């Protein structure tokens, strides 16, 4: 188990190289979808900040559609994750910190979608903006923790 985890992490880090060489397992489906989801949430923070500085409804609309798109992607990622598990595709280790972090980001984004569905200025300022920021912080922390753990495992393994 430990041995195997080391190998997969190594291939993950050197992704570009691994693409050229045959792998023992196929690339996971869900990873790309997770990246899309995260990108949408980051985008929503950007449009929220813009709206806060320049309250034109256009930015508010961008935000809510970006959040919803992020949630749809997260839903698809969950399905893809299940397919990956069932299909025996490679899952990056350790998986739990990531899963918990992403789940938290999605949960916050669901709340954020409701706040962003309010009418007018208070759909964004202050609660919506705070939530969008918090989601990005959670995503960054998740990535940082996952990376640190992966590094530790690799060194320790």
């Amino acid at each position, binding site marked *: 188990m430990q041995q195997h985890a080391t190998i997969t992490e190594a291939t993950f880090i050197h992704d570009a190289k691994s693409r050229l060489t045959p792998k023992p397992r196929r690339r996971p489906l869900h990873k790309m979808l997770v990246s899309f989801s995260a990108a949408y949430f980051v985008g929503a923070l950007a449009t929220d900040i813009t709206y806060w500085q320049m309250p034109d409804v256009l930015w508010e609309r961008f935000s809510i*559609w970006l959040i919803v798109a992020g949630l749809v992607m997260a839903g698809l990622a969950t399905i893809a994750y299940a397919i990956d598990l069932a299909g025996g595709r490679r899952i990056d280790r350790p998986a739990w910190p990531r899963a918990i972090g992403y789940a*938290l980001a999605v949960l916050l984004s669901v709340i954020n979608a409701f*706040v962003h569905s309010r009418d007018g200025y208070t759909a964004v300022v202050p609660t919506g903006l705070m939530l969008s920021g918090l989601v990005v912080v959670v995503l960054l922390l998740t990535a940082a*923790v996952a990376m640190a*753990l992966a590094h530790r495992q690799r060194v320790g393994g």
Partner: protein
Amino acid sequence: MNHALKISRSAKLPRLAALLVTVAGLGLSGCDDHAGDPKMQIGANPVLPALQQYFMPPMAVAKVVGWGTETPAVAQGLQVHALATGFQHPRSLYVLPNGDVLVVESNGPKAPIDRPKDIITGWVQSFAGAKAKDANRITLLRGSKPDGTPELRTVFLDHLNSPFGVALVGHDLYVANTDGIMRFPYQDGQTSITAAGTKLTDLPGGPIDHHWTKALLASPDGSKLYVGVGSNSNIGENGIGAEYERAAIWEVDRASGAHRIFASGIRNPTGLQWEPETGKLWAIANERDEIGPDLVPDYLTSVKDGGFYGWPYSYYGQHLDPRIVPQRPDLVASAIVPDYALSSHVAPLGVAMYTGTDLPANYRSGAFVGEHGSWNRTPLNGYKVVFVPFSGGRPSGPAQDVVTGFLDANNHARGRPVGLAVDKSGGLLIADDVGNTVWRVSSSNPHSASNN
């Protein structure tokens, strides 16, 4: 893997979980829905609770069940019967000088989807019968058979565009489509108009057209038309540019079609009437949503020339709405408090100042108001026709229930009252856009009741 789980549990989770709970609490705290007694919000001094912002806006629409063999309930001394049934979403009524009744069958244009919320709202409203096909026509009813139904029923005017208000001046019949006032030639006794109309003026219509009904009232001398033009949003969420010349009562010059804003800041003025004693203009208005079950009370008010009534910046005078930025303190300072609150979310869509003599004496001076009923409040509010007594040209007491029973015991909607009119013999007519019926209320005293 166990190792990782342990780390995330010990270090990350509690802090994040605490954050999550805090944030969720922030939002959910707005969910406490303690709707007060609507009676506290009727009259000149409604109790206005603190504003609240929802995490999840409440949607409580009454499921449509239809009337079956039931009829509405009426107050003592009155009786009610179905004048005619089988309409397509009848919204407003107009009585011609010869006694013919015009029934405007209309529904709003298709709402655009600008936000994910619009998809959900559209879906919920479809349960309340709001998505009925737009007939875009006016049906004429004439005379009365022994059973109380009309002797003649014809399509009076067809191929309109979400019509609502109607006004006859001499031989000119004006119909307020959602995007313009049309003039049609009318001869006394005519049962169908086939002539093409002439546009008097454009009115603010699409592409959003959030509040689409355009109420219409001619001045007593016939020189001016007053038009109720609703806002293009709940609270400016479509941008202030979309509100140009909306949330206002227009005064249109009948000869030239030129207009000026007679009064502004009235979110959705859905009915206009002259108060018979003072000759002043009165309006009913639908106020804003999503800041609580008891905010903001809809109202009945006299309309002052040049008056500003708050929307979107404030309500009931200087109560600021934080959802609109930038604010306009200059306008808010001048905001007029409406005369008479009808309580929150009742959705008044029809008003008739009673000048007839058929109904019992206690209805001889005052305004009937058709309350379509709430869609975002628990318990439901409205779904009835009330009477606001007037004395000396001002409301003089609490609103009384006149026609009820639009909801059954399970809070399902048999129908929903909309436009009102007083017919030639003094009966009160009620358009019911969910029951697809026009009801006639008359005195139960056989000496004065004319139709039964």
